[in-house]
């Protein structure tokens, strides 16, 4: 167990090695999308690759968090809860901002990115609280 104080200790070498299949699958998906005609079979394969990438990403991330000790897991749980709530607020306020004329608004991948950023910012803040 590392004794260094690091809020991002879940992102270790093993985590990044486990992400390699995601990079490979994404490259295969991109190659398929660019070179093959969009037949139903290719579309199905692309959807399968997309689903598989997301599923593997979840499995790898959960496994990385489970390797942490109980305080680190607690910090992650609170950070994820904060990110989830913040993303929910942002998503539900979309219509409100549209009425105000704001057209550039995070949605889809943008929302996932927003959630990831809030999660990691919350990690740093919470980590300092328990330091």
């Amino acid at each position, binding site marked *: 167990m590392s004794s260094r*104080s690091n809020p991002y200790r879940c992102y270790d070498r093993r985590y990044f090695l486990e992400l390699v299949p995601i990079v490979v699958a994404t490259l295969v998906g991109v190659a398929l999308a660019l070179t093959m005609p969009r037949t139903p079979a290719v579309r199905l394969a692309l959807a399968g690759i997309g689903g598989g990438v997301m599923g593997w990403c979840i499995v790898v991330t959960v496994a990385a968090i489970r390797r942490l000790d109980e305080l680190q897991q*607690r910090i992650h749980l609170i950070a994820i809860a904060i990110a989830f709530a913040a993303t929910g607020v942002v998503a539900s306020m979309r219509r409100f901002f549209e009425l105000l004329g704001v057209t550039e608004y995070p949605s889809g991948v943008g929302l996932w990115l927003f959630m990831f950023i809030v999660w990691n910012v919350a990690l740093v803040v919470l980590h300092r609280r*328990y*330091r």
Partner: protein
Amino acid sequence: MKNDVRILRTEKRWSQAELGDELGVSRQTVNAIENGKYDPSLPLAFKIARLFGRRIEDVFDPGGR
């Protein structure tokens, strides 16, 4: 929850990192427990008590001292 982890650790002349290694947790977790910022789970509390050869209620005081 108050505890005597810091006292017991210094009696053994262990650093927080050394105690963390013995318990399989990070130095930050040991520090948070010692400062009362974090209450350990029951398995970890038992592990701490056994490591110091004490009963769990001799190390941790839920009422605060």
